[in-house]
């Protein structure tokens, strides 16, 4: 997965053509750490079908807030640089990565 920061966020996400997935996380966020192995597995499984990235919000607080993310974990899909769907902590707990996977298929269709 591509590590995002304020230096490359615009180029990798907002100026990207296709579908981009971003995991907003932080090392202090226990639910994020619990989720991380599943997110990595999801990214590996679907490698090449979309761009998979993660953003450690610890050093990129303003960037996250500018993306309207103020809670962790948050998983967001961007298409053509526009935010098209986001999963918050409760949505992830409810549907698991299966729901995220279904959304990926829907957005690729």
């Amino acid at each position, binding site marked *: 997965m591509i590590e995002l920061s304020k230096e490359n966020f615009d180029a990798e996400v907002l100026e990207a053509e296709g579908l981009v997935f971003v995991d907003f996380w*932080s090392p*202090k*966020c*226990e*639910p*994020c*750490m*619990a*989720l991380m192995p599943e997110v990595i597995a999801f990214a590996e499984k679907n490698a090449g079908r979309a761009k998979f990235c993660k953003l450690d*919000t*610890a050093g990129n*607080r303003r960037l*996250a*807030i500018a993306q*309207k*993310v*103020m*809670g*962790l*974990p*948050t998983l967001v899909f961007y298409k053509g640089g526009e935010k098209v769907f*986001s999963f*918050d*902590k*409760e949505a992830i707990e409810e549907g*698991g990565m299966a729901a995220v996977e279904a959304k990926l298929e829907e957005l690729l269709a």
Partner: protein
Amino acid sequence: MSEVYDILIVGAGPGGLTAGIYGSRGRLKTAIIEKGRPGGQAATTMEMENYPGFYKEASGPEIMDEFLAHAKHFGTEVIKGQVTDLDLQGEVKKITTKSGETYQGRTVVLSPGATPRTLGVKGEGPLRGKGVSYCATCDADFFEDLDVVVVGNGDAAIEEAMYLTKFAETVTIIVIHDEGVLDCNKMSAEKAMKNPKIKWIWNSVLDEIQGEELVEGVNVKNIKTDEITNLEVNGVFVFIGSVPNTDFLEGKVALDKQGYIITNDRCETDIPGVYAVGDARVKFLRQVVTAAADGAIAAVCAERFLEGHVEGRVTPELLSKLNK
């Protein structure tokens, strides 16, 4: 699924991990099934000053890491999986996870824990993860130099409010009681009252959360005068208790009307060889220390049960008494 565990534990919070420690020290084949990261709600609580022996700058995640290391040290296995079905009848009990795996145990310790309760006010759902939070350790960083409100006044609310003052500019606590009355312990109350970053709104409840894409403000309602005041804030932290994670246990073990697992004081449920520990069981005090105590009791009861000594369970008489 040929292996049969002596003790199969569902959930690796403090109760489940302690049952693991006692079970594996008793040389019993012990495993814990956990869907996320071990540690339960305690692992998302930064300020924890009441677990015996850990008072020097210990945090919830650190204490829970020690619990986990302790259980693994004595041989407890930790299996990743989300339990979707249980067959608790019969001598060998079966537990199935979301991925389709089935695990077998001669005894089962249920330690599913609880989830923070939501307020149910306008704006709360749409603004989750956008300023509305139930986890200070997850989200406090975002609120550096910003203003937040905390709803609630129990131990968790006041202690997490104190943690939030390390980041936020102001932390306003909305309390339903009269001025000066808090449900939390006296030491935390005294500390919070002295904290210059904490402001108080008494006799009040949160009525509405406003904001387009991020939280912009809240309406606070005074329950004595019905007067509504608008506050401009960027964050809303909700700590108003919890609900037990027992939906998947409905029809499997006896639950009370609120969904808590009914046990006797030996943590025995209404099914022989099945125990319940921690926040999800009917009890007076929900703390890490009482969850740990439950875990010890359940593991020892399970050990006795396996030896054929005791076959205790919650009796129909107790059930009918509790259900009244």
